[in-house]
Every structure is written in C-alpha cells, then in structure tokens.
C-alpha cells in the first residue's frame, strides 16, 4: 500500500476513495507535494492519489475511476508533467478519459462541466515542457540559496556525463542547501522549503480553486 493524502493528512492507502474531491498525481513525491499544498490552501475535503508515472496512466487512471467510492466523487483533478510536450501529455490524458466514457475538459488547466467535473493540469503550467521540479524551482527563484545552486549546476554541466534532467538536479541541489535533509521535492514541500505563496503558483492555485 502506498501513501495517500486524505484531507491534508498523509496516511497509508486504505484502498477506497473516501472524499468527494480527488487529485490524481504521477508519483509518491507528488502526493507529498500536493498534500502540503492542499493544507496551505486550506482545502480539507480532497484526497491525493498516486496513479503512477506516465506509462502507468493508461491502466491506473481507469483503475482509479473504478475504485470503491468513486461514484461519490464530484471533482477529479489530474496532474501530469508536460515532459517534452504539454499538448501531447494533455491529449494522452483526454484519450484515456474518453475511453472510460468520462468527459474530459476542452482545455488544459481547466475543469469540464460534467459530473464529476474533470480537470487536467499539465505541469509546470503555461509551458510546453517541464515538470513539478521546474515549478518548485520557480517559486524560490529569489532565494539566496539559488546562487549556490546555479554555481553547482554550472560546474556539473561541464562534466563529461552531466545530469540528464537539469530541473531534477537543480531541485536536489536546492534541497541539499536547506537546513534539514529533504531528499525529494515532495518532502521539501512538507518541510516548507518551496514558496507556496509565490506568484509562480497562480495558475495552479487558480486551477485548484474549484476544489475549495
């Protein structure tokens, strides 16, 4: 059993949906991040569930909408990384939803008017490429630690075999510069290392407004 966030509280997954608003995310790290964000936004009646990476979406999203308790869900928010192509990520999720006879939204970062209302947010939001780490880093762009991070990344990028995903390396470097160890962006969010009040989260906050 993995971890799930129920009403802003992390716990072991009981296997059934208990709240009427569900946020489906790409991994455990995202569960931790959105758990912290929901608490910050004071949204208490939503749960966050891991539907695996993009390769698992095809089977885990259909599994999610079949879970015991899903018939009472009023809003389903699906959060996916753009990776290299935001439109392709959006279309892929829409196709999965259509195959399940669910009504997907017409545009990304919005909800459909169906029941349940379904929204798809493609990370980092308003960008063709990227992921949660990109968004987290934007929230701390002005943080003094970023000078150390940039210097480290500059150095690392000169290596023969440099980090393949710059955003992940940069996020790790930023977290390494924090007072207490946080080995992932989700844990970083739990420890309050990302600025959840940042304007950079306006798109995401506005997307999640419907869940209030």
């Amino acid at each position, binding site marked *: *059993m*993995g971890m799930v966030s129920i009403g802003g509280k992390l716990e072991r*997954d*009981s*296997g*059934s949906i208990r709240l009427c608003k569900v946020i489906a995310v790409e991994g455990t790290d995202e569960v931790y991040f959105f758990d912290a964000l929901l608490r910050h936004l004071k949204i208490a009646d939503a749960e966050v569930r*891991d539907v*695996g990476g993009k390769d*698992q979406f095809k*089977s*885990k999203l*259909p*599994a*999610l909408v*079949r*879970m*015991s308790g899903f*018939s009472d869900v009023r809003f389903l928010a699906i959060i996916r990384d753009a990776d290299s192509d935001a439109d392709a990520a959006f279309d892929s999720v829409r196709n999965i939803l259509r195959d399940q006879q669910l009504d997907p939204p017409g545009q990304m970062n919005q909800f459909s008017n169906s029941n349940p209302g379904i929204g798809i947010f493609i990370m980092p939001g308003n960008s063709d490429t990227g992921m949660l780490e990109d968004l987290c880093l934007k929230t701390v762009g002005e943080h003094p630690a970023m000078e150390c991070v940039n210097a480290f990344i500059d150095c690392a990028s000169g290596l023969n075999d440099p980090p393949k995903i710059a955003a992940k390396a940069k996020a790790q470097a930023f977290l390494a510069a924090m007072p207490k160890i946080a080995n992932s962006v989700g844990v970083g969010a739990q420890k309050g290392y990302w600025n959840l009040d940042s304007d950079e989260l306006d798109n995401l906050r506005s997307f999640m407004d419907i869940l209030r």
Partner: protein
Amino acid sequence: MYKKLTIDGFRGIKHLGVEDFRQVNLIVGENNCGKTALLECLFLLTGPTNPQLPLKINTLREFGVVDENTWSVFFNKLDINSDIKLSGELDKPKEERILAIKPSMKSATLSMTTTDKKSIDVGGSYTGLSPVMNGLILDYSFVKGRDKRSKKPITTKVTATDTGIEFETPKDYEEALRGVFINAKTVSGDMGRRFNEIQIRKQTDRIVKVLRQIEPSLVDLSLGADGIVYCDIGLDRLLPLNVMGDGMFRLVSIILAILDAQDGIVLIDEIENGLHHLSQEILWDAIFESAKEFNVQIFAATHSIECTKAFSSSYSRIGKNNDDIRLYRIERNGDDFRVVSYDHEILEASLDSGWEVR
C-alpha cells in the same frame, strides 16, 4: 456465450444490467448486493423452460420448503404485482432470451361445515376473499440468429397443489444450452454421474494431474459401485474423495461441472469456499484451461481478495492476452445498482496499487 444480462424485479434487484461478459467472469461486491441473485438469473435463463429451477435455486439457498411464502421471495420487495423480467443476449450463436416470471394465482375457496359458518362473523367490513398465489408462470420467448421476431412464447408452470408440486413443461421444446450451478453447500449431488462421464471420455488423467498439485501422492481416481469417487494415494485401500479434504472435493466438483457442461455455462457461488488461498491459483489455472477446451462460460462469485488475486495472477500466466476475463463489482445504494467492470489490465493495475476491487 452470454454477452449481456438485464434483470428487472428479481429478489433484491429492482434493475441491474451487465454487459460485455467474457468467457470467465468473476462477480464481487459487498454482502446483499445481488451476486448470488445474478448467478440465479443466468441459471434460470439457461433453463427457461424448466419449471423446477425456481425451486432448485431456493433449495440452494437452503430454503427448500414449499408453502405460501415460497413464491413471493422471487419478487422484488415481495411485490407479486410487478413481474420479473430477465433478458440475456448470447453470441456464437447469436440469440436473445427473455424470461418473464409471473405469479400463478388461484381463487381462494372455503369449505366449511355448518358449525364453521356460524362461527364466522363477516360484519360490515367483509369484502371477499383474495386470490392466493400458488406458484409461478414462466413465459419464455427468444430470438435466434438474424430473426427479427421472437418465436411464440413458451409457457411453463410450477404450482403447489393439495397433493404436491405440479410442473407443466412444454412438449415440443428441448433446451440445447447446458447450465450447472454449484454453491458452497453443493455436495456430491451429480458427482458420481459426472465422474462416470469423464471416465468414459478417458479424461480422468486430467483431473488427477490438477489434484496432484494439492495432493502429490495421488496416483489415480476411480468410481465405486456406490457412486463415490475414490482416490488411490498409494495405500493398501482406496480412500473416498470425500475424506480427502474440502479443497480436493471442491476442486473436483468444479472441474467435473465444467467438463459436464460442454458448450454451456457453469455458475459457481462462493468459489473460494473450502480452498486454501495457495490452492486458489491451482483452481483458476484448471478453470481457465478447461473452460477454453470445453467451450464453457464461467460465472463465479467471491468475497475473497486472495481468490481475486489468484484469478488475476493465474490469468497473467496462462491467459495469452486474449481479453477473455472480466471482474464485475456490483455496488448497491438502496434500490440503485451499479456494475463496475475490470478487464485484466485494469484489475492488475488496481491490485498493484492495493486498491479495493471487491
């Protein structure tokens, strides 16, 4: 093979529709959600001109008495004024079956002595005697192949009389589809006859091979003159199968039913009953293989997560990705019934996440 089933007004089910049945179908859901009723409906639709079946399914529920309460229990909320309608769609060959079940009523008559008459005070409120339900009328209609119109309905009847139970069966209709219903309490009933059939077909080895996975010392099976199946486990004497443990007995009864129901359907309630969870994968292996070989469609119901996991993992090994299994969860909210269906890929994804499918 059934593809679709619609139930109206049967037992606790006001309305329920299930589509997309496959060769092997596992039904799950909470208590009292209608799993057994669904199996019973398929059983009735498979023998729609056999008026003994309604009483048989009551007996399988350990309600074998025939009295004034017997007949109303088939009707939703005991309301005999709303008929039961069951319909099923089959393919290969294409066929639609509709079975309407209605109450059979008889006028109440009183035979009274002079003394009785004196003792009855009908007063001003007396409005007459109500008709009494004494049985069921089964109206079966069907459409085969490309026909647009159904054939003339076939009516059969079961009624309780002063002397016993009377069955009116059709003279000119013979049902081709075979159906076998097994539940947790089903014991050796037809086991001797079925085993004899298997012996004649020289297929005893197949069952022995499956059973050896549970009892490695098993050498052979044979049928005694007393109708009991005996096991040779290398001792001086043969042992009756009945004493070999619930798991062996259950496994044999299910496999025999499948072999016996060639080209038909087998319905198994509480399929996990009597089987250790480690044996359940052996059972599913045997079911998948024999259902395919004997062209039998399986409908089973369970409460057990181990059984559900065994269903999925067995199919992962031997299913060859033919998409011929489904799991259906029946969800009940008052009078509303909803069916959630899982193909193998989605079932695996759910089990992998530890998400409840039952």
